[in-house]
């Protein structure tokens, strides 16, 4: 529907309004910064939930033959811990930064599709709630985060646990795809004049590559989940061996998604580190082009390594060799990145502020995770390592030591921009040291336990195998790790009461987000900036001969902004309704699905036809 000239004038007049407040403004927001905050707060809540799940696991494993948790509870908790951390914590924490920072860093006033963006958040929230509602039915997913067939068949998993997992992940997949389309177009299409692709900040590049991975990998798991769902709900036999189905097909489909997924989990952190290191070394990122191409190469190759998760399945020497070689190959661009980060700090003037602590911690920890990954790449060795705590050690070093350290660096780095307040430096350093020590105490011994015979996903272990001592150390470590996040929370609450007086550019940053007030006004840039090279803000400060003046807050008159909208939320509710309808097919027949679809269509139609403003 066309907006009339009168509508447009009205939009202009209200553009200079004071910041909206109240619940309705949040439910209808299409402002990428607010969506970012929603993502961040929700994801952080799920991260803490996943952390509590982990601590419960660690308490159970702190002693042999422990009865603290029943086997069934343990299996639900380890499955939910993994699923939560991957899909409800790390990915949406990255999405918080995609949302808040990408438009700012490319000099844009908005994302390409503000309502699609909001929709992706509401669907994510719905998926997280759907998945966790399973606890209230005593039927949380309990089949491991990769849900191998044929354990997941109706026959061997008769309860609702696997259903919650299958349908919950489908919901989350929609959120990821919607967001990926949005950011892919935003990055390609909404860069400020002069910001050629090879002048984009590295965080934007890594995020861009992540969106490509999302777009190509998620459809594969969508199909895998559809096949599993059809087996469980409609009586097909895709993964039922007695009817000719093959459990190995699930493994292939899952890992064709699953391996790119791990790059989806790490690339944003790579991008954040590539922002933080130069700023706090006071020199540019070393090897910009190499960083771009190595990131792209990792993503491309990431689709060619999936069966390294299947070395123990007996695929035969040709397949084993192929995947061993591609896996080793992917270590090369990864190493290139680490060396370029080292090259960035080398010869710099390192400013020891909290973001830098976490960035350096990231490098230190990720090296270890990367090296254990190379050890897995050799099938004869991996036959001992797979499915043991050695693997658990590896992926926690790359996912926690890598992604979480990186995301935490980003949180401290961009906190002033997002909230207008500085976090406390001392508390930040306490957080860092507790996290570093707790993390290493928890996960380093796992390398040793794994190589010495402790398999993974075991709810207990007997006496006499020698596993007690290191498990106790790990349990203590996990408590220290948990404490570090209590410190972080305390930091957030303590500083939240202070005034919003963070400067626009507290760190002497190089990129465009530091040119606007903290927090930014709704339209981000009063004037769309013109870009002449990489590190545009350093260039501007160099030309000026000193720091830039504090940017003023303006009225925003004449700046066109998209209208808020409730329809993304409605559509998200409808989509969730469809999945709830599938879960309840045996209770209410098709009517749940019908109601869900109706709400979905209603939401989508209103979305399509409302004036965008």
């Amino acid at each position, binding site marked *: *529907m*066309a*907006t009339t000239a009168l509508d447009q004038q009205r939009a202009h007049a209200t553009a200079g309004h004071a910041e909206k407040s109240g619940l309705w403004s949040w439910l209808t927001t299409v402002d990428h910064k607010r969506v970012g905050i929603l993502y961040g707060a929700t994801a952080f809540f799920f991260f803490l939930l996943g952390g509590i799940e982990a601590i419960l696991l660690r308490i159970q494993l702190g002693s042999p033959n422990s009865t603290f948790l029943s086997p069934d509870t343990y299996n639900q908790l380890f499955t939910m811990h993994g699923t939560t951390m991957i899909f409800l914590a790390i990915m949406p924490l990255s999405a918080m930064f995609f949302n808040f920072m990408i438009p700012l860093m490319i000099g844009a006033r908005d994302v*390409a*599709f503000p309502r699609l963006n909001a929709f992706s958040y509401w669907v994510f929230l719905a998926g997280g709630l759907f998945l966790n509602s399973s606890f209230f039915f005593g039927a949380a997913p309990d089949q491991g985060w990769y849900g191998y067939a044929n354990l997941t068949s109706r026959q061997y998993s008769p309860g609702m646990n696997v259903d919650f997992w299958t349908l919950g992940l489908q919901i989350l997949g929609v959120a990821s*795809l919607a967001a*990926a*389309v*949005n950011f*892919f*177009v935003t990055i*390609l*299409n*909404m*860069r400020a004049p002069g*910001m050629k692709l090879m002048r984009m900040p590295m965080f934007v590049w890594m995020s861009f590559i992540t969106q490509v991975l999302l*777009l*190509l*990998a*998620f*459809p*594969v798991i*969508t*199909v*895998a989940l*559809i*096949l599993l769902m*059809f087996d469980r709900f*409609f*009586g*097909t*036999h*895709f993964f039922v061996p007695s*009817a*000719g*189905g*093959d459990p190995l*097909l699930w493994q292939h*489909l899952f890992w064709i998604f699953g391996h790119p997924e791990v790059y989806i989990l790490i690339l944003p952190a790579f991008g954040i580190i590539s922002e933080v290191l130069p700023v706090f070394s006071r020199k540019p990122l070393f090897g910009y082009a190499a960083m771009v191409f190595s990131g792209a190469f990792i993503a491309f190759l990431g689709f060619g390594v999936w069966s390294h998760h299947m070395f123990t399945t007996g695929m035969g020497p040709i397949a084993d060799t192929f995947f061993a070689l591609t896996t080793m190959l992917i270590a090369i661009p990864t190493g290139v990145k680490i060396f370029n980060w080292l090259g960035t700090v080398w010869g710099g003037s390192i400013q020891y502020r909290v973001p830098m602590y976490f960035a350096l911690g990231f490098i230190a920890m990720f090296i270890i995770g990367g090296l254990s990954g190379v050890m897995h790449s050799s099938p004869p060795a991996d036959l001992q390592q797979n499915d043991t705590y050695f693997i658990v050690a590896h992926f926690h070093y790359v996912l926690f030591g890598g992604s979480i350290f990186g995301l935490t660096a980003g949180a401290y780095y961009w906190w002033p921009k997002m909230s207008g307040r500085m976090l406390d430096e001392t508390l930040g350093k306490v957080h860092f040291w507790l996290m570093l020590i707790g993390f290493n105490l928890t996960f380093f011994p796992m390398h040793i336990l794994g190589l010495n015979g402790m398999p993974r996903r075991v709810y207990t272990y007997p006496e006499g195998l020698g596993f007690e001592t290191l498990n106790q150390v790990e349990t203590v470590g996990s408590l220290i790790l948990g404490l570090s996040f209590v410190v972080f929370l305390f930091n957030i609450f303590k500083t939240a009461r202070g005034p919003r007086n963070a400067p626009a550019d507290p760190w002497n940053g190089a990129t465009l987000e530091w040119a606007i007030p903290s927090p930014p006004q709704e339209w981000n840039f009063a004037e769309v900036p013109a870009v002449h090279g990489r590190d545009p803000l350093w260039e501007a400060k160099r030309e000026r001969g000193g720091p830039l003046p504090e940017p003023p807050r303006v009225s925003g008159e004449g700046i*066109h902004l*998209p209208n808020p909208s409730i329809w993304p939320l409605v559509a998200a509710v409808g989509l969730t309704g469809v999945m709830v309808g599938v879960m309840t097919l045996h209770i209410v027949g098709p009517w749940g699905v019908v109601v869900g679809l109706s709400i979905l269509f209603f939401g989508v*139609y209103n979305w*399509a*036809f409302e*004036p*965008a*403003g």
Partner: protein
Amino acid sequence: MSDHAHAMQLETSTGLDNRKLAIWTFIGSECLFFATLISNYLVHKQTWLSGPGPFPHERWTSPSGQAFEPIIEIPLVTMGTALLLFSSLFVVLALANAQRGNRNGLLVWLAATLFCGFFFVGMQVYEFTHFVHRGLTLKTNLFGASFFTLTGFHGTHVTLGVIWLLTLWIEAFRGKIPPAKSLNLEIAALYWHFVDVVWIVIFPVVYLIK
């Protein structure tokens, strides 16, 4: 629909409208979706031999002596395929008329597209019902499961496309698709072409190759 994007058309870094870029991105992702479904079908089209079921292409006698007649009706599906292919042409003609501001031409060709779409979906519904009557369901064996999943999801995509184009036809009828808004139709047309191309792969894989 939204004229927010219209203003953006002048400013995008690639020169492409955001929504056009978005539909291409979505189509790229959907390629992987259908590639996975087609691969699944190829993996399972033979493994049904471990169980009973009507043979799709040729008469088959089971080990127990029961004879099964072929159930695929190539002529009907070929008709549907041909009409789907023509519908892509029709939607291009509809778009050309929209861009030229010819409302009548737009309505006629878009209606022709819709007719083909309806026929195709109707053909699939008929075929599915026919197969179920002859004993092939999702549950019967892996051929049935893979066949219905693949063609069912494609058919769902066609149905959504029909709903989309029908909505646009109603908009066009109300005069709401002037040349300046022809992008709305172009995006739907791109989606429609994609759905057609997927069928061009599915048709030989499922119906022609034995």
